[in-house]
């Protein structure tokens, strides 16, 4: 299991060091600094092994988190734990920075004591942790409160405490999708997928039982079988095929496996209910058509057309097209019909920004790039043209069908809950090779 956990600043100074196992000595702290942080060549793997000791590291801004072990640990678990540790720290003191870590080092030690015992991760849900790890000093708790804490930390529903009350029961549901594309210069889709998240903010009283439904093809087809044939034909169009999905630990997985229904008791506040991935019938909001021509050895001509491909009534926002330029670029002239375009020498790219663009429109940019003559034999790698945008629909086609809330013990019903649903589609890695 995890033998020790260290946090360093960018210089390699130790900010936090907690050793869990006897086989990890103080020299491990230095070994990581010397071999990874100060390594002459950049380390090319997140897992490294020196002197029979394995180091796992992740980096958040300029802070290094390293877990150390001498055993054959579950590597996936160690990384998941490190991410979780970052989440917990963020939940307690927002940004992970050197200053925040120094300011909260007592708290961090307290957390590390709680969520990692002898190198075994324990309950690390912030909701539960915040009930008894506070920096306000321990109020004298009643016996009841104490047992409530411990039963929450160890219990089946570790993510929610009892006795939550809201005057107004509200639910916010965001469907956040990032659409990824890799397209060949000829316009052939090399790979495309949507990775989506359903993020929920719940402000509900008591221990509500929720049920979430979406236009999942498998569910709809199943229902269609029961109904008339036209029905299934109609709904088939609107349903989407989900390649795979994963759920927050509050979701009853065995129920999903057998009935494909998503039921759960939600944590309080904001959390990620599910993640999913689709690859079929994706609506690609934009199409990029590049044209790069080398005119002699010192000049490039670039023309890029973007086409929006969604309902004309919808507006895309924050559109940005990034056209890479060679390292030996000396000057660029740009002409664009819409938005603003600038050559950014430090980033080796022309950045073209458009604030808003409606569906089924087209826009174009052309640029002349002057090159310095070089004798560098290495050819310019021609990185792909990338794009950023935000659209108010889900490119996968996912629709929320219902979100029902039941709380039999308290006197509010599904109708009393105010629910908000929002769809946001963003670009993930949206690239077209040129």
């Amino acid at each position, binding site marked *: 299991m995890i033998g020790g956990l260290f946090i360093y600043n960018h210089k390699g100074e130790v900010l936090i060091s907690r050793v869990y196992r006897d086989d990890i000595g103080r020299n491990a702290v230095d070994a990581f600094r010397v071999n990874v942080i100060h390594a002459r060549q950049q380390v090319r793997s997140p897992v490294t092994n020196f002197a029979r000791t394995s180091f796992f590291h992740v980096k958040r801004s300029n802070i290094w988190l390293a877990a150390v072990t001498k055993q054959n640990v579950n590597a996936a678990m160690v990384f998941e734990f490190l991410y979780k540790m970052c989440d917990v720290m963020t939940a307690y003191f927002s940004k992970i920075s050197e200053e925040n870590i*120094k300011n909260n080092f007592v708290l961090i030690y307290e957390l590390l004591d709680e969520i990692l*015992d002898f190198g*075994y991760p*324990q309950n690390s849900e912030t909701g539960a942790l915040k009930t008894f790890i506070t*920096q306000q000093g321990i109020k004298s708790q009643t016996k009841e409160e104490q047992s409530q804490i411990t039963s929450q930390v160890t219990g089946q529903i570790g993510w929610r405490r009892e006795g939550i009350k809201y005057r107004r029961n509200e639910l916010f549901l965001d469907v956040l999708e990032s659409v990824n594309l890799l397209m060949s210069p000829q316009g052939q889709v090399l790979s495309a997928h949507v990775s989506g998240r359903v993020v929920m903010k719940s402000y509900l009283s008591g221990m509500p039982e929720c049920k979430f439904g979406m236009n999942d093809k498998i569910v709809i087809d199943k229902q269609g079988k029961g109904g008339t044939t036209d029905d299934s034909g109609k709904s088939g169009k609107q349903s989407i095929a989900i390649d795979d999905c994963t759920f927050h630990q509050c979701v009853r997985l065995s129920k999903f*496996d057998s009935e494909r229904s998503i039921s759960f008791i939600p944590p309080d506040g904001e959390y990620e209910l599910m993640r999913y991935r689709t690859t079929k019938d994706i609506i690609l909001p934009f199409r990029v058509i590049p044209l790069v021509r080398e005119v002699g050895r010192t000049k490039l001509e670039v023309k890029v057309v973007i086409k929006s491909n969604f309902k004309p009534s919808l507006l895309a926002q924050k559109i940005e097209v990034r056209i890479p330029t060679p390292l030996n670029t000396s000057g660029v002239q740009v002409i664009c019909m819409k938005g603003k375009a600038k050559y950014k020498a430090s980033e080796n790219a022309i950045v073209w920004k458009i604030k808003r663009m409606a569906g089924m429109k087209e826009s174009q940019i052309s640029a002349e790039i002057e090159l310095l003559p070089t004798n560098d034999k290495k050819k310019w790698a021609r990185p792909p043209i990338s794009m950023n945008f935000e659209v108010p629909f889900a490119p996968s086609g996912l629709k929320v069908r219902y979100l029902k809330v039941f709380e039999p013990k308290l006197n509010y019903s599904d109708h009393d809950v105010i629910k908000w649903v929002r769809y946001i589609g963003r670009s993930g*890695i949206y690239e077209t090779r040129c």
Partner: protein
Amino acid sequence: MTDSKYFTTTKKGEIFELKAELNSDKKEKKKEAVKKVIASMTVGKDVSALFPDVVNCMQTDNLELKKLVYLYLMNYAKSQPDMAIMAVNTFVKDCEDLNPLIRALAVRTMGCIRVDKITEYLCEPLRKCLKDEDPYVRKTAAVCVAKLHDINAQLVEDQGFLDTLKDLISDSNPMVVANAVAALSEIAESHPNSNLLDLNPQTINKLLTALNECTEWGQIFILDCLASYLPRDDRESQSICERVTPRLSHANSAVVLSAVKVLMKFMEMLPKDLDYYGTLLKKLAPPLVTLLSAEPELQYVALRNINLIVQKRPEILKHEMKVFFVKYNDPIYVKLEKLDIMIRLASQANIAQVLAELKEYATEVDVDFVRKAVRAIGRCAIKVEQSAERCVSTLLDLIQTKVNYVVQEAIVVIKDIFRKYPNKYESVIATLCENLDSLDEPEARAAMIWIVGEYAERIDNADELLESFLEGFHDESTQVQLQLLTAIVKLFLKKPTETQELVQQVLSLATQDSDNPDLRDRGYIYWRLLSTDPVAAKEVVLAEKPLISEETDLIEPTLLEELICHIGTLASVYHKPPSAFVEGSRGVQHKRLPPRAGSGESTESPDVGQSGPSEAPPAVIPSQGDLLGDLLNLDLAPPTATVPSVQPSMQMGAMDLLGGGLDSLLGGDIGGSPSMGAGLGAAPAAMPASLGGAPAVGGGLGDLFDLGGGVGMPTGSYVAPKTVWLLAMKAKGLEISGTFARRGGIIQMDLSLTNKAMSVMTDFAIQFNRNSFGLAPAGPLQVLTPLSPNQTIDVSLPLSTSGPVMKMEPLNNLQVAVKNNIDVFYFSCQYPLSLLFVEDGKMDRQVFLATWKDIPNDNEAQFQIKDIHLNSDVASNKLQGSNIFTIAKRTVEGQDMLYQSVKLTNGIWVLAEMRIQTGNPNYTWMCWRRPHVRECVSQNDSPVIS
């Protein structure tokens, strides 16, 4: 709140000041001071001098302060054990506190204080906490048992904590169950043979129930534990799989990977025609693909695992090629792994896409990545025959870019393509020759020279080209020198008239002016060959080469099986068994997949079931196998995708085998007959699985004692029963079983040859590959009469230890080639190291004493021998029979200690201490000066010793 100020105090006299503050009356000031102490501790300052003052702050009702003091204690208690005792009282009191959080805190901290004296006081509170009414305390106490076991295993056993821990598996709280499972699994790991984790259908059912309810981490502990269970039959296996599959949708990647591990393992037991088997296969793909959208570090872990899964069950991901396409922004470690998987998934169906991608990658910036991409194109050509042409033209395009490292890499792979498709693409040689001057890496130079030598007759100026290399002969690396020597000899054999001078020159350079023994040896062999019989030389040197196999980089099947059992763990990331990077007893035991469905009734004992015919193993040639394949082909260039540093030794291997048996070889025994080539490709795969790992060795453990049962029996060295080394079905009807023995100081290999074919077998001969201890046949294989069908013949082959030496993995591995009138067959076997214990291994007492002290700790290995009930005299007697000599004996606290010495044939001494305590001998092996021998000795010798 600005705690960061605590980090900034650097003035002198700090400790003194802190001391005063710690003893202050004001609570706040005390707390501040403790915080400062912890901050100093973090940055590595020694604040142990403050121990008593800090401990004084322990008795407080301020929980925050208490936690800080505990943190300090955990760090420094070990350096001040006497002082630590001061804290015990508070701990014991805290364990009785009304607040469960404090009870748990106390028991958790106490377990972290690694001071012997404290552990005594820990027992009572721990016992209470294990039965506490609050689940939070119980789950903490469960882990504490593992902590205590780490400090004092005996104490845990004596106090009966293990049984209490087992009871916790049935606890009503899922988190308590999960922690108990974690603790038990860890303890069980250090007692490989104990039946601690007594898994049966009832406990499994409890675990599966807890799996649905506990935290994500708990699910991981439980799944990892489930993976070590062996279901009784396929029905049980299926029902467990059904209850584990929902975990594939968990948001935590580690849960998913651990579930995949359980499924991959248990799937092995399901009949392939079962509907459920197909369903399961389909269910595995999506979650694996989803792992690739995790954070990059997890992607890396996932990709390393997918690499294994794809090798074991290619069908799972065969349609998912696209998700492994490299993204521009992927970190380099993700890119390289994706590339590897792309090649593994490449097939005729998707090769066009793959090639287009690879060509893109070859223009990227990162040098390693580009090289690997170029190499990948070559591997595609070898793997998918239909694509070879396209690959070659892509490679030629890349050569035109003139980017130095791209060109060199391309030439290396083109050489491999020539070896797979001879006489097909030689038209490109001209293009290659144009780039001769730009090659500066040894591998590329060697490859180019090989090409020139191999096709000398078609290259008009081959002699000029080779001559140009000859000028700087002594500055070249060995790899290039060897290749150049061979190439020129080839050239001479092809165009003898014009190149006599050249060959003279290179032979004298290699034999007279070189210090490198391998080069000299090779030079002399050629010289002698050429001078005695040019015709034979031609037959040997220009013999037809076997085609190289499509995959030279697959993981060897037994290792792959073991790694599949370790999915998700570090072993699967490193692609090494845990024993390769974990110290001590942990992880040394080898895990295995359950026997495959349909392999007979052997389900109950997996180790025996291995001999059942598994489906045809993939045509893997592990790197050592290549060496065998290369036996007769002096000029073979190094294969693709092996570490460059290995190559010289591999070529030397080929050389030496030929050198050793040169005469018999020329006598027509194995001779340069071209037909030989056919059998070489597939042969090395035929290693009997039962010989693979430690279990087989372990099996012999008890035998030795049984064998020498009575005291009065004549002592002699232990001889293991014969095992099957070569299966008839893999060797055209010839079955070979055998064992090794040491009789009167002579090592013998006892073989039983059985003819299970329809025709008579004659003309037997045997050869060994070079091995760790230089074992070689001392005479020819004496099979005088022809072996008629269904006849078995027993032969004893005397061995000498004067053969060529090369370190093998494992150390005692021996690769053997047996030839008869039908074909040549290869197998490998492992000999007991006791074979090499010589009769004069008794060390002088004084020398022993002195040596014992000198041995560094690193060279020490310890292990236990189980279930042997002998007193020290009998044991000593018996060991003497195997040339393990007892030098001294003493008795300490009821334990008999035997000090022993062993000498190996190559002069290495091994010293050992044997502690015998009522049938539970504990062995410490210490090896003098040679640490790597130590590992092998300890691992392989338990059978011998007993």
